[in-house]
């Protein structure tokens, strides 16, 4: 089963999620963006590690999910065949030296080179302006070229870049991952940190962050809230390795789905995800339901 992408390349759909959505909403949900999946079926990317190593042999029965404290029945979506939709958000602001920029370009191209058939990527570059260089595409040569193109140069509209990246990610029809690089705090956005965090709750995109340099106030919280990782590096020549690890670890995650029961309110739902046998579990802190779901 496949569906043509805008660039004509076939990619698989998500059969398990599709079935759940059809049952609940009476309409195909296979490639709905995260925005609309929230009410009927909730998907959560879950990373499980023990002793620093990924745990890869879990079944749905191993997951314990609480939605606002109410136990839910987890369904496991196979992860190996699911394509990724990666939003690469790169800081091109003035505080980045030319040599550092070279490392960043190399790191970005490393992500593109690590994409697999079916995966797509979008590119967001930012300084005081945010620029979506391309929406999701599987045209890898074009992506590589765009990553090397001149970036906006100026202050850092980090909040606005994070906002646009999450929005873009959540509009994807597959499995979105935002990889965001910045070397500092916001110095230019009108959009507040509060708005960024609220957007993270509403969109559900997983945001993984790599920073170099100054302490960031919003980025660790953003990564934590969305179930992503926050990595602070000492030097930009390490960023390529971190990007690669993020992508690889994201591929090893479980995609768990559940249909909320007895938690029908609209708004923010706090999630707790654990696994039998214990381990380090990383998942988003909750999800946003636009409308109350019917009582079940």
């Amino acid at each position, binding site marked *: 089963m496949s569906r043509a992408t805008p660039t004509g390349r076939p990619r698989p759909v998500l059969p398990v999620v599709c079935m759940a959505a059809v049952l609940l909403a009476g309409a195909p949900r296979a490639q709905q963006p995260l925005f609309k999946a929230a009410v009927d079926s909730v998907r959560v990317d879950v990373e499980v590690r023990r002793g620093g190593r990924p745990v890869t042999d879990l079944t749905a029965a191993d997951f314990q999910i609480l939605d606002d404290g109410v136990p839910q029945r987890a369904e496991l979506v196979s992860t190996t065949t699911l394509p990724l939709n990666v939003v690469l958000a790169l800081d091109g602001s003035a505080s980045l030296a030319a040599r550092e920029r070279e490392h960043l370009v190399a790191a970005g191209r490393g992500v593109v080179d690590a994409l697999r058939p079916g995966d797509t990527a979008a590119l967001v570059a930012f300084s005081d302006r*945010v*620029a979506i260089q391309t929406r999701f595409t599987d045209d890898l040569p074009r992506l590589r070229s765009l990553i090397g193109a001149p970036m906006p140069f*100026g*202050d850092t509209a980090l909040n606005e870049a994070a*906002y*646009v990246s999450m929005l873009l990610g959540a509009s994807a029809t597959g499995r979105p991952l935002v990889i965001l690089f910045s070397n*500092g705090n916001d110095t*230019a956005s*009108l959009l507040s940190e509060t708005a960024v965090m609220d957007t993270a709750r509403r969109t559900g995109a997983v945001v993984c962050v790599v920073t170099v340099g100054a302490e960031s106030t919003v980025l660790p919280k953003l990564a934590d809230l969305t179930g992503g990782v926050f990595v602070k590096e000492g030097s930009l020549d390490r960023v390529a390795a971190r990007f690669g690890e993020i992508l690889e670890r994201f591929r090893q995650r479980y995609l768990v789905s559940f249909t909320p029961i007895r938690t029908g309110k609209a708004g923010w739902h706090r999630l707790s995800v654990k696994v039998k046998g214990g381990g380090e579990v990383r998942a988003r802190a909750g999800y946003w339901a636009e409308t109350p779901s019917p009582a079940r």
Partner: protein
Amino acid sequence: MATLHRVGTALVAFMVMAIPSAAQSPSETLMLDWLALVRSHEAGTMDDASASASELSPDQIDIFLPRALESIDVPTLKRALSMHTDIALAQQATLARPAVGSRTAVVLLDGLAIDDIPRAQPWRICWKLATGLATRRDQGPAIAAWFRATGAVLQQLGDCDLLAYHLDAGLSLFARDAVIALYAGTLHQTFADARVQAFIARRQAAPTMPSGISPLAQSKWAAFEQARRDLDRRMRVGRDAATRNEPQAADIELGLARDFFRRALQLDPSLHETRIRLAHVMSDLGNHEEAVATVKPALATTLGPFLEFYAAVILGRSEEHLGHYAAAGDAYARAAARFPGAQSAELGRSRIALTQGRADDAVAIAVGVVGPESPEHADPWSSYFRVHDPDAGALLAAWREGAK
């Protein structure tokens, strides 16, 4: 005889002023040369007279300036102020670097010092002339207008360093001038901004000079560090508080800004720019209700495009914080109507669409303004700390006209 004597005295006096005699002291000669330049200078230009005057060092001018301020007539002193203002502006525009005796300031971009600039000295002469003139009868309003006009210029240039000294001088003379208080508030608001705070944080994170760097890099490092210390002194309230683990320096600067804005608003309730900036500060301090109440009256009046934009986005942001999404959406839309395609306002609209459950609209608006096919539009938000209405050029032209 008495009349003749008076005429004769006047003539003698004129001769002394116009033709240096062998008995003149060097300082008198300098002053006469200077006066000749002042009288031949055409205001608003960098002509031969001002070019020659710019070669006089501030120390040379200091030798005769006190006597000039006592003895020279007001119109000539105002011409002198006009000439030295032109010199200062010209040096600032070309980043001319005086040879010796300069202070240093740093150029900040994105919280990073990217250059150091020896400061031009002519402003020091301007401040002395202005201060001397302000004590002359009926000259207060004209000199206050000069501080307002040149303050707007320095704010427009983003020169916080000189503006701080400029406002010190201005406030010491005109403590009850609403516009000068407005500038002072804006300066503290700028100090609280992330661009300045990030610079300080970066310097404090690396307090010692790296080893093994070139002499040129050492010189730059030292200049940046000196600038950081100057800034620390300027922001001494915040720094001391930070040391005592009290509220962060940025919040204290915001508090100072709030106090100046409140004073300005009290002095002139019709100064709408003050309302807008006060609302912004209140929003940054987390008091969104007061921000909304403060800025709304400004939006009920006729504002210039920039002020209307700022008022609208600040209202939008505060309403959004309060969860009043419809009102926030209206405010952002008003700003976007003033400057179509402005990223800040359009992303505000996008955010509101998201909060209202219109995710597709949120994406469409965002892609429409920052997408691959969207043209780049000016965003007034990026110049928020530099804008004053009426603008610096208009204020300066009006002052020059009055100084003729």
